[in-house]
């Protein structure tokens, strides 16, 4: 028996919004520690890794490890049926081929349940090595979303360049070029609005704007976003979901190809 209950369905709704455009289907791996999801997008350029810890749920029970393959489009449709203030409970039997979502209104006057068929997905899992990154940038998530949106008008790719002066986002294309520079915040009054850069070595990498724009669908989950970069490895874009976990996006860079 698996059962996980969240007082606010809005968290789960936002999580689905954050992944459903990038992934069509994914496996939710549930165990004693909580729920994990790892999946690549169809083109295998990016990877989503979601963690929802058991202690972040109001009630969490997982008798046996269970992996539930879900169509994220269908799951998103179901979660749209829940009100933001509704309580949501996910339930599945040990050998079930369905999962049930129960939504309860705050005053318990309305209870709805939705049963969804599970899928048997045979997806590849990637081992994510422990990596020390040359640069980590923490910044307001809304600011990052804005930059990605603005620069994607100029070109398909965005160059992120991190030096000790600050971080520079640039793009160029047919209409011209765009540069956005952010300096480290001098005084941190509000932690949520701060730009904090930790740098061992300067890094410059190029990424596809399209994927970054998919990642920023998670903006509503967290006021801050953390970007981690090292030369020639995937970028990590991390949103911490308060009190329950995080969602991390890994994006392979665009690299100059030697034709020799």
């Amino acid at each position, binding site marked *: 028996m698996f059962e996980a209950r969240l007082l606010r369905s809005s968290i789960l709704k936002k999580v689905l919004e954050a992944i459903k455009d990038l992934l069509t289907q994914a496996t939710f791996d549930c*165990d004693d520690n909580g729920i*994990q999801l790892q999946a690549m997008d169809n083109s295998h350029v990016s990877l989503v890794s979601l963690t929802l810890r058991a202690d972040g749920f109001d009630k969490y029970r997982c008798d046996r490890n269970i992996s539930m393959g879900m169509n994220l489009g269908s799951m998103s449709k179901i979660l749209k049926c829940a009100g933001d203030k509704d309580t949501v409970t996910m339930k599945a039997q040990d050998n079930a081929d369905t999962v049930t979502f129960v939504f309860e209104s705050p005053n318990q006057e309305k209870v709805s349940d939705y049963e969804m068929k599970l899928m048997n997905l045979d997806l590849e899992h*990637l081992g994510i090595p422990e990596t020390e990154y040359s640069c980590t940038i923490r910044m307001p998530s809304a600011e990052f979303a804005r930059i990605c949106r603005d620069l994607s008008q100029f070109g398909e790719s965005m160059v992120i360049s991190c030096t000790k002066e600050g971080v520079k986002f640039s793009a160029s294309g047919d209409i011209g070029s765009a540069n956005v520079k952010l300096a480290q915040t001098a005084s941190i009054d509000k932690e949520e609005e701060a730009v904090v850069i930790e740098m061992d070595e300067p890094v410059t990498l190029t990424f596809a704007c399209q994927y970054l724009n998919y990642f920023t669908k998670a903006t509503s989950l967290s006021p801050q976003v953390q970007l981690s970069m090292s030369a020639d490895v995937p970028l990590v874009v991390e949103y911490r979901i308060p009190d329950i976990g995080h969602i991390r996006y890994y994006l392979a860079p665009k690299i100059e190809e030697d034709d020799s």
Partner: protein
Amino acid sequence: MSTLSMRAPGIQTTVLDTRSLHVRGVTTIEGVRRNLFGCTDREENRRFVERELARQLDLDSQRWGFDFATETPLPGAQRFAWQLVPAASIPAALRRSPIKITPKPAVPKQEPKVSSPENSKTQKRITDFLKPRKRLASSGKKSPAHKHKHECGGAHIRPPKVARLAQAFKRAS
């Protein structure tokens, strides 16, 4: 013997007058066929085909910037830059057989043209950096947790796949 009778299976007997055959230019009768559309000029047909093939070859040459007759790129600025590649690097299905490799020093080594600087970078895949590993449970639907002792028969002791993942994530965070 003033008439010739031809009989073919299934066909009505036709009677032809030798005189009328003479009129039509038939002198010796070896075989007779109906000639509905007049005589063909084989020479003219051959010229027509050759003309069409040459025209097509010329069109292709202009289109690809490559002289297919001599197997050399056309001089001047072209849409495509041609490069000589060794036959070994081409899938067998695409090779002409038997393969005759004749070195063509006339072909200039040119780098492929690039339309915009963005295209010079290649989008890498996430799998170029992170190694895939197979999910441990084949069914993907249930996996016995060894933490629950009451569940544990000997056959059930398998490493729980999710727990290992969780450890990896804890280390990474």
